[in-house]
């Protein structure tokens, strides 16, 4: 147990060390790019290997503890570690080609590249830190740190608009997360009065054990703060205001991490509290809140998706919608609802990463995110066009892709809980999203391209990661491998029963 628990420490150490190396590389001069790419590639590969190893151990042992209980990985955390590791690897792979292009065109210089890779791994580190923290204060610190780690990536290009987006991001999320701090303190003070041990009462595993003894009124209040606080970070309506700017201004692989992974980490924090609060006061109260925020997010985002003319902003609003679906799934509850929500979290991160990376390729090709200019991709870059089309279909929730399955499961869970009309309403909102993305394909993929765009696909290295994402997206659309379904079922059990 102890030996394998050390694996969690390695999972934290590796991105941190890679990050430091990347920052150090700015002193290297001409060889910096090669060094950075090599270190980066080793870093993401090790991360992926460790991730899969940790998941394997979690599946065998049930859970892992490290550093006298400060870090903890159960099946729930493993789901999110999987998302971070897998998406970190694929987006990291994509970053290499994308940042090379930015270097060639002078968007960033060598120091900028070092900053990029440094913060990229620091960002991964903070996200892993968040999901592995058993200590609720550290978990809060982790979420706050993700903001700081990624804000520099959002503002990387130093344009007026990207700096504004970064500033807005830091400001709104810090204020939001301050609410979560208040919630955290409430839970801590309450658990301290029950557990009577300053250290243990901060550990999530201990709090859950004593959840039934916690004060119902305080827990209710705490959950509201937690939901607003971490909900800001997760991009739930109406606290999502930072999200479209940050996601559209960041370099594409970072947009993809923000949207595909970071939002999930904030949701993870909410789920941890949802479990505690559910045990303390029953799940009716937290479920209803999640359901309200979830459905509102879907409803609101659906219409904003429809009206966007900037492809990355459109994708950003789609993230709000999808976080809404996950929150709805959690709110509907039951084994099916939780399973659907967690599965949707994985599916959305795959599909959305694919879309953001493809939008990166579009930026390379067309030099713009404006949908009035991006036309005729089929003639310009057929393979990218194919991937964009598939990704848009997936995000729209169409078979044969994975999002279709998890959305259908969510609807099924809704009917199971007796929300027939609410589900029909949600399906109608999803129809708006569907129309928006089909229109996107119609315009961007077909039609005739602008004159100044050179024909021919972008380089192999920027296509390969997207293609791997496509395989995942299609594979999970037609089959769910049993280790994954075991993991998800196990995680759903934890959400329902506590430990």
């Amino acid at each position, binding site marked *: 147990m102890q030996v394998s628990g050390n694996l969690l420490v390695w999972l934290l150490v590796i991105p941190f060390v890679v990050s430091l190396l990347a920052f150090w590389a700015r002193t290297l001069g001409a060889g910096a790019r090669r060094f950075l790419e090599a270190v980066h590639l080793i870093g993401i590969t090790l991360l992926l290997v460790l991730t899969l190893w940790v998941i394997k151990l979690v599946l065998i042992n049930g859970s892992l503890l490290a550093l006298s209980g400060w870090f903890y990985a159960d099946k729930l955390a493993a789901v999110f570690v999987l998302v971070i590791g897998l998406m970190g690897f694929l987006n990291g792979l994509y970053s290499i080609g994308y940042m090379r292009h930015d270097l060639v065109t002078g968007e960033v210089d060598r120091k900028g590249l070092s900053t990029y890779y440094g913060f990229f791994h620091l960002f991964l580190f903070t996200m892993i830190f968040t999901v592995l923290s058993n200590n609720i204060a550290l978990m809060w610190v982790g979420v706050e740190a993700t903001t700081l780690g990624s804000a520099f990536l959002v503002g990387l290009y130093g344009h007026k608009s990207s700096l504004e987006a970064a500033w807005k991001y830091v400001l709104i999320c810090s204020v939001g997360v301050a609410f979560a701090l208040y919630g955290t303190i409430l839970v801590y003070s309450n658990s301290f009065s029950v557990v009577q041990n300053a250290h243990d009462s901060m550990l999530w595993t201990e709090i859950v054990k004593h959840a039934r003894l916690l004060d119902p009124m305080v827990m209710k209040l705490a959950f509201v703060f937690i939901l607003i606080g971490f909900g800001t970070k997760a991009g739930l309506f109406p606290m999502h205001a930072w999200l479209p700017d940050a996601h559209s201004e960041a370099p594409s692989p970072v947009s993809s991490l923000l949207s595909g992974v970071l939002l999930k980490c904030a949701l993870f924090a909410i789920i941890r509290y949802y479990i505690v609060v559910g045990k303390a006061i029953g799940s009716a109260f937290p479920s209803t809140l999640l359901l309200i925020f979830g459905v509102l997010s879907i409803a609101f985002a659906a219409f904003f998706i429809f009206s966007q003319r900037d492809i990355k902003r459109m994708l950003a609003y789609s993230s709000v919608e999808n976080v809404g679906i996950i929150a709805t799934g959690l709110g509907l509850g039951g084994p099916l609802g939780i399973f659907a929500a967690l599965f949707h979290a994985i599916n959305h991160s795959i599909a959305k990463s694919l879309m953001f990376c493809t939008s990166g390729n579009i930026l390379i090709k067309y030099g713009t995110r404006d949908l009035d200019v991006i036309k005729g991709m*089929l003639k310009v870059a057929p393979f990218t066009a*194919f991937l964009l089309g598939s990704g848009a*279909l997936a995000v729209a929730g*169409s*078979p*044969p892709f994975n999002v*279709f399955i998890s959305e*259908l499961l969510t*609807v*099924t869970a*809704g*009917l*199971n809980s007796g929300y*027939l009309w609410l*589900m*029909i309403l949600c*399906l*109608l909102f999803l*129809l708006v999203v*569907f*129309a928006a993305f*089909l*229109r996107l394909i*119609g*315009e961007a993929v*077909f*039609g*005739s391209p602008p004159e100044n765009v050179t024909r021919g696909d972008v380089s192999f290295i920027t296509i390969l990661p997207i293609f791997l994402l496509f395989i995942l997206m299609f594979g999970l659309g*037609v*089959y*769910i491998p*049993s280790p994954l*379904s075991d993991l998800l*079922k196990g995680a759903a059990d934890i959400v329902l029963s506590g430990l």
Partner: protein
Amino acid sequence: MLWYALGSILVPAIGSLLVLLLPERHAKKVGQLFSFLAFVCGLLLLVGFAADRASFTRDLVTIGGISFYGVTIDALSVLVNFIVVFIGWLICTYSAGYMSPENREHPIKEGVPRFYAFMLLFIGSMAGVVFSSTLLGLLFFFEMTGLCSWGLIGFYGDQKSRKSALLAIVLTHAAALGLYVATAYVFVNTGSFSVNALNELTDTGKIIAFIGILIACWGKSAQFPFQSWLPEAMVAPTPVSAYLHAASMVKVGVYIFARTVLATGAVPQVIGLIGAIMAVVTMIYGFIMYFPQEDMKRLLAYSTITQLSYIFLAISISIYGSKMAFNGAVAHIFNHAFAKGLFFLVAGALAYTTGTRLLPMLKGILNKIPVVGLGFIAAAVAITGVPPFNGFFSKFMIFVGGFEIGKLYPLILVLIIVTILESVGSFIWFLKWLGASVLGAPSEPVAGASQVPFAISLVLAILMVMTLISQYIVLTLLS
């Protein structure tokens, strides 16, 4: 048997991928080859089934003890699959001639691989719908066929076709939400996605599930109030209109309705009532819309809408207990596919050779291009139900079934009489265009018509034969 069924699904899907990967010059050959292989699978299955009559259901994708997808082989699926792969192959052959720069209406210089990729994927998805033993499978492939249809309607890529494509997919997807809800509802109440699980529902449960199913089916089969996408979809290349929007995809709706009714022993009669009334409403609407149409393809689209209403009516009547009406519905799915497919391909051949499909400009077709003229005659009389053509047999079965039930339920009797009136009316209207367009001296566009490519003539000839004999295939298998 199972492998033939899977072959019909997978062979075209693999072909679809190959068409995209291989160089453009091979696209037509690969498209024809794989559609032919799928046809062979379908034919062997038909022959094999006719010999041993062994119906069965086999689960294929099972996750956590729940069957996600399985295959059902029975007379219904074998017959419908046969039209899917047979006409699919004919269309792929016809398209080899049609999709060329020689085409006078729409010279086609690029996009042939994309066309065949969507077409082959569509054949596979259709076979997927037809064999599906689960509601989830039906839903999955329902949406897949919609996507292929969207890609093919928007094939030319101009503003108008993109808009029509979007309308088609949004409307059918909106209707599909009914099937989403029905699938989820059945799963929640029975713990199974299987079509047969409909049986385990209470009567109220069946009504809820069937209303969802009906909405989806109306959408896909362009029935009122979802009909508007079909006439707009006529901007697609004509082989697409012939295949997707006459012979096969629009049959997904009636097929799913038939499949679920067949699987559910006792369907509440109120569903039959709703289905029958809506069918006749659509029929009257479609009939009225015949008159202003001058574009041959739009006229045919409205004719498809009304013919699909016949099938809805027949299935709805079968809910009241008429086996004859159900068999009539299956026979009409089968027969109409050949007749209407032929009719559209005639329209396509006219557009290809003369550059127009406006009926008032087409005169004296028989005189100048006899093969097309004969096709026109065969298709028109088959659609309107003149013996010895196939349409007569299936319509007759539907009427007999209708009177059987009509004796007990006066409302059904009224509906069936309206249907007969529609049938007579459309006969007269088609006879009018037949006289004006086919016979007589050639008009200017027809007189200047170009040569009909061999591929097109061949397919027209095969389909003409089928409009004379398809009813015997169906009657043999249903007996």
